């Protein structure tokens, strides 16, 4: 075949259609829509299968309630559940706040004094790797106040990702910028405030998102261990109590609320992170495009 046989279609210049580009665009659009549609489809199928299994096998509701009974229970018991949820959220948020203060404070101390870091970092790791469920019973022996005990448990779980991420961030400053600050005579405080803290912000926010979920886990686990009921107990105790009474629908309803709370905390923290970073940081940038 001679070279002259090769013919290239050249349509009018203002209406060039590239097949590859077209396919790529179509795929992008499908993913964009699918991101919302597919989870909903999975949800509907799961709920239907659940309902169908219960109906066909005639499973009694004290073993497996059907999804509609769970929703009905959620609405009927809303007052009890919401007051329990309020307690759980309170503990979670307080623990998260203390974790932020403690984690960031400790990270700053670590970067200010290497000596301090090498002395204390191993203990922070030990505290992190020991399962909270095994420390919690001890905590409730020595801590009289129940709320303080719960707070302490949730804090132990939540503070480590903030500490380790923030420390990493404070130490990952561009070395040329460090030199620049030195040449311009920045003191330790200025370096921390204008260079290290902004550099660490994306790392800190990453840690914060993990810590948010962990604080909730810590709060729930600790309450299982604490185990005392009465007024002012959280969702974990509601689940325990409902379990004793074989009130399975209520267990499911409480579970739904806990999961929803976790998602909500994550969403809020992701939003905060996006607001703080979207103008300059790579991670937020890619999301925009």
């Amino acid at each position, binding site marked *: 075949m001679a070279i002259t046989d090769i013919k290239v279609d050249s349509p009018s210049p203002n209406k060039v259609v590239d097949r590859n580009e077209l396919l790529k665009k179509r795929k992008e659009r499908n993913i964009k829509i699918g991101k919302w549609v597919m989870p909903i489809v999975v949800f509907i199928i799961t709920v239907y299968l659940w309902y169908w299994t219960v109906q066909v096998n005639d499973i009694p509701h004290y073993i497996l309630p059907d999804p509609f009974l769970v929703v009905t229970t959620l609405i009927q018991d809303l007052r009890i559940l919401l007051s329990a949820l309020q307690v759980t959220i309170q503990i979670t948020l307080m623990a998260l706040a203390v974790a932020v203060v403690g984690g960031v404070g400790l990270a700053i101390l670590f970067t200010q004094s290497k000596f301090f870091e090498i002395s204390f970092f191993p203990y922070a790791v030990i505290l992190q790797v020991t399962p909270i469920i095994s420390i919690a019973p001890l905590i409730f022996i020595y801590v009289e106040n129940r709320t303080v005990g719960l707070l302490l448990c949730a804090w132990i779980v939540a503070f480590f990702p903030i500490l380790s991420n923030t420390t990493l961030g404070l130490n990952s400053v*561009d070395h*040329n*910028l460090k*030199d*620049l*600050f*030195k*040449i*311009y*005579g*920045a003191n330790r405080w*200025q370096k921390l405030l*204008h*260079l290290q803290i*902004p550099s660490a*912000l994306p790392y800190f926010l990453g840690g914060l998102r993990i810590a948010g979920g962990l604080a909730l886990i810590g709060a729930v686990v600790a309450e299982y261990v604490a185990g005392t009921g009465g007024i002012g107990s959280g969702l974990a105790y509601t689940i325990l109590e409902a379990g004793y009474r074989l009130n399975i629908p209520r267990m499911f309803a409480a579970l739904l609320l806990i999961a929803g709370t976790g998602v909500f905390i994550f969403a809020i923290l992701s939003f905060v992170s996006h607001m703080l970073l979207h*103008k*300059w*940081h790579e991670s937020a*940038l890619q999301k925009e495009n």
Partner: protein
Amino acid sequence: MGKTFSEDIVALREMDLKIHSGDFISLLGPSGCGKSTALRIISGLTEPTVGEVDWKVSHGSGAIGVVFQEATLLPWTTVEKNVWLPFRLQNKSFREKKDQIERSLELVGLKDFSKSYPRELSGGMKMRVSIARALVTNPKVILMDEPFAALDEITRFKLNNDLLALRETLGCTIIFVTHSVFESVFLSDRIAVMAARPGRVIQELGVDEPYPRGESFRTSSSYGTLCRKTSDALKSAMEN
């Protein structure tokens, strides 16, 4: 102003360089010849092992400006706030220094981008911001460590021209580290050719071409001759 220092472990040996006020001097050499080490010693970031720099810099005075190979901007803040940095570290407010910051940005041709974030700018523009930041304190000396090495040739030529124009306006001393023969000939009064292992100056070349230099110099025969001469010096530096 004279400098005598030596750091004879590996980096630099018996480097003796006299730099006059208003000079544009290039340190040219292969990698590992201690160009950057020399610059770090001059800027006071590193202490020389032996010898000293006659001209002492006090950090924070704004007497020197630096430009690195990367633009080295604070990504979380705007262009104008980046240029404010040297003053900010002297505890001077933005409003107090607004005129100087604006003028500096105007000199590098980025007045319209003062509110942009670094990520919105091209590589060349980021480098201009970096230069504006170095200029803003009106320094006596500007140290440049391969500032245009990461840029494409077209941008680099443009920035070379602009740098010379800026120097005409400001009249400051510039110490310029580069590994480009063409760049060093085009820009400087004097070229110190350096050799590696151990790092040292093996030859000093003068470029007797009056400023301002423009595109006509870049295409002139004297430019070609000087480039060849410098290339030869660099070649012998590599063989040494």
